[in-house]
């Protein structure tokens, strides 16, 4: 048997190329911006301009193609539908904001100009990750994304915290990727396919798969729960959030979480939520338990934190719990993933904005801002204080911000699909979360600074990033109908 018989070489047509356009533009843009970054004086400016231009070009190509007909490349390996293209658009928005956030911050922290190229590479991996239905291609996309992120985390080269965070993230991330690979190999052995849809089809006609399938699925789920930072696998989250440079932390909290959660949703939909297989109910209970544990642990540990970035890292674990609640509701109620997407999009924007504000007050190689250090800064810098307040209120889910809309949609659809006990836990723990979000606001506006002054860095890029996120947070909080109906339309 010839190789060419197994894999007939099909030439890519014009529409295939147009759909692949964003990925190609980002890859070439990344290489070019790394090359331009070597320029002696203007390296950072050139790399910034190049990376921003390629994200913009990729966004425009993607935007123009959103409603074109579905295209599948390499025998259903990559699927470009309105749904996946909308997810890519959201990722490109996050990366655009992250590039602004990096500009200015890179000089302050001594980051090399390569950081712009690395952001583009990781976005390429993310776009491939949300567009594929193939387990092994998902592994490759996951690695394209993660390898760039490992380097970005360890990029503050003179900071001990950054070196340590990079090491921790690399070791645990490498372990998770290997678990994913071995898990998909076992699933392949049990079902004879790597395509999620064919596996799902196989399972519905074979309700008793061999035990190898369960082992493989357990490994895959563990790897994905690690990537989203759910509770038993959350150990790396606080350390990496503190150790990485603040712009990278914002990017990770937004884009990596978005991608990993979309992949987890896709895997759960096809491999876990198959009603014909009774053995899978154990896995469904497992996801349920992890959701409850993440919400309770994240919110209660965040209360005792005095450092802002560490507090936000525990709150992100809690947000993972809310999102897993949405995932459980999808199983029970057969709803689609639209509420998850809306919640993730809004959360990611507020998250990026919050880290943009934090980066305005950080010294070089500083580990974190403490509550005492930010006391009174809301009065000295009213605009930034107001932005930070807005982002924190949005994360807490207070009305008039986008966070409320996301949380309301998520919880109400979970109640409609009958996942009541978990929603009760979620609502109670989000009441707890209001305490630690409001505490930061009280320190900013109602306490006098206690000696430890922070200096305002005056970064224009981070200011712009905070402004964009604040406008989006308010806009989607006050007039959410357009984006909600758009997401509902494309997820049909």
């Amino acid at each position, binding site marked *: 048997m010839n*190789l060419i018989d*197994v*894999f007939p070489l099909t030439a890519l047509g014009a529409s295939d190329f147009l759909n692949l356009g964003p990925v190609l533009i980002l890859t070439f843009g990344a290489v070019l911006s790394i090359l331009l970054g070597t320029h002696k004086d203007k390296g950072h400016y050139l790399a910034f301009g190049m990376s921003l231009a390629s994200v913009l070009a990729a966004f425009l190509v993607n935007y123009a193609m959103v409603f074109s007909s579905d295209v599948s490349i390499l025998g259903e390996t990559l699927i470009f539908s309105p749904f996946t293209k909308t997810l890519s658009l959201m990722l490109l928005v996050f990366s655009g904001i992250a590039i602004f956030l990096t500009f200015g911050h890179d000089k302050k922290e001594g980051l090399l100009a390569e950081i712009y190229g690395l952001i583009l590479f990781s976005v390429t991996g993310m776009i491939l990750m949300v567009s594929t239905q193939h387990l*092994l291609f998902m*592994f*490759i996309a996951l*690695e394209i994304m993660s*390898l760039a992120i*490992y*380097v970005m985390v*360890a990029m503050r*080269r*003179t*900071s*001990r*915290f950054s*070196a*340590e*965070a*990079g*090491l*921790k993230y*690399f*070791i645990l991330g*490498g*372990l998770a*990727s*290997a*678990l994913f*690979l*071995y898990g998909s*190999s*076992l699933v*392949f*052995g049990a079902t*004879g396919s*790597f395509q999620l849809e064919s596996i799902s089809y196989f399972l519905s006609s074979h309700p008793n798969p061999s035990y190898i399938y369960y082992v493989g699925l357990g490994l895959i789920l563990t790897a994905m729960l690690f990537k989203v930072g759910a509770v038993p696998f959350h150990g790396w989250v*606080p*350390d990496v959030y*503190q*150790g990485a440079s603040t712009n990278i932390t914002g990017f990770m909290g937004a884009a990596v979480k978005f991608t990993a959660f979309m992949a987890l949703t896709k895997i759960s939909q096809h491999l876990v939520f198959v009603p014909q297989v009774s053995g899978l109910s154990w896995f469904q209970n497992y996801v349920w338990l992890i959701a409850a544990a993440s919400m309770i642990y994240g919110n209660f540990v965040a209360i005792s*934190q005095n*450092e802002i970035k*560490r507090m936000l890292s525990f709150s992100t674990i809690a947000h993972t719990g809310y999102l897993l609640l949405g995932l459980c509701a999808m199983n029970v109620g057969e709803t689609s993933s639209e509420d998850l997407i809306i919640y993730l999009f809004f959360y990611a924007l507020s998250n990026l904005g919050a880290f943009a504000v934090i980066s305005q007050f950080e010294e070089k190689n500083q*580990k974190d801002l403490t509550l005492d250090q930010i006391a009174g800064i809301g009065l000295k810098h009213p605009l930034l204080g107001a932005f930070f307040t807005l982002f924190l209120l949005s994360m807490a889910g207070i009305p008039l911000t986008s966070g409320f809309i996301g949380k309301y949609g998520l919880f109400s659809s979970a109640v409609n699909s009958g996942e009541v006990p978990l929603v009760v836990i979620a609502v109670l723990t989000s009441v707890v979360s209001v305490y630690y979000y409001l505490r930061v606001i009280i320190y900013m506006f109602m306490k006098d600074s206690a000696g430890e002054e922070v200096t305002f860095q005056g970064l224009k890029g981070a200011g712009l990033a905070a402004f964009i996120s604040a406008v989006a947070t308010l806009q989607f909080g006050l007039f959410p109908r357009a984006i909600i109906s758009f997401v509902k339309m494309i997820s049909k």
Partner: protein
Amino acid sequence: MTNDVLVQTLAAVLFTIGILVVLLRRDTIMVLMGIELLLNSANLSLVAFSKSAAMIEGQLQVFFVITIAAAESAIGLSILINLYRNFGSIKTQNASTLKG
């Protein structure tokens, strides 16, 4: 036991050894080798499954995984050099400044 089962058992044993190395060893070079062992045991399992299922997909994938493993170890080693510059050692127990 047939050959298939033997090879799969070998892959599983290698994978377990890899996990134990990653979790228990304190030397980061050994941890890197553990990650390589994990990826290669997964490769072995992929090849064996695609041989027994008479499908070529899994075997092709192994080439991609080998490439990725090379990139991953390059990045891992550069992170180690960075760690050594900052801490003067590559033992994991020294790098524990982030707590709370």
